[in-house]
């Protein structure tokens, strides 16, 4: 069953202290060539019937993202692509 994936990211101008904390930890892994890390949220939505991108956009705009501080994208993925993303 195809799903709708909503990716929510803080707007570029909003400070992401979580991402900074992760970036600051990378040298401890021996990683020194990362300029920045930003953390967002991926939400997978499964509809009871056919996936509805318009409806998903409405959900994203009203609840999943706060447009004051966050941007979001909405896209359709096949079930196997979702599985890949988890591997």
């Amino acid at each position, binding site marked *: 069953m195809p799903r709708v994936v909503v990716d929510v990211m803080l707007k570029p101008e909003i*400070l992401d202290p979580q991402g900074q904390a992760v970036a600051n930890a990378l040298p401890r892994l021996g990683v020194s060539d990362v300029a920045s890390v930003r953390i967002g949220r991926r939400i997978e939505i499964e509809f009871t019937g056919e996936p509805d991108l318009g409806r998903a956009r409405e959900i994203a705009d009203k609840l999943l993202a*706060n447009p*004051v501080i966050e941007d979001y994208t909405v896209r359709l993925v096949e079930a196997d692509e979702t599985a890949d993303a988890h591997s």
Partner: protein
Amino acid sequence: MTARVGVVTFPGSLDDGDAARAVRIAGGEPIRLWHGEADLRGVDAVVLPGGFSYGDYLRCGAIARFAPVMETLVDAARGGLPVLGICNGFQILCEAHLLPGALTRNQHLHFRNRDQVLRVEATGTAWTNTFQPGQEVLIPVKNGEGCYVADAATLDRLEGEGRVVARYVGGNPNGSQRDIAAITNPAGNVVGIMPHPEHAVEALTGPSLDGLGFFTSVLKHLVGAPA
């Protein structure tokens, strides 16, 4: 007649009891309201208390905003009902678009709890009319996501219209832009504040009695005394 001040309890609210107590100590009658009921029970004002409504899932206040009580409250607030959002309540007011901007993770990522000096700047609101402009008060702050952010135009407008209600003095506990601790809507009936005035109403438990002023202000506002 004693003013009836509603205090909403959401699943995960923490400070509803203290808020109701603060209302009573100030001389009002606290009325407990439940998130799942749209009925405001005819209250004269409402406090949205601190806590972690709905587990702070998704974003602080994001899910609480869609509680049945909020639908009624948003309309009532637009009609002039005094509403004070404290901490999580401030986050809910921003999510409900009754106040501009948003509260995000503290810049240093640490939960901060300490007694905090604030400077009260806007004294024309329903919740701050018993303070003097520039008055410094000592109120506990306790938050993990209290960093106030908004775009520069919004911040300029808040400052230009005198809608910054209070700022942090002697150190900004969470990285809030322009040291903002509390703001109000254009009408001055809706105020969001990150620190906790309801925890500073008694000598036994608080660092001062300064928080009481927020609750006596709304009572004064409701009897129509000049603000």
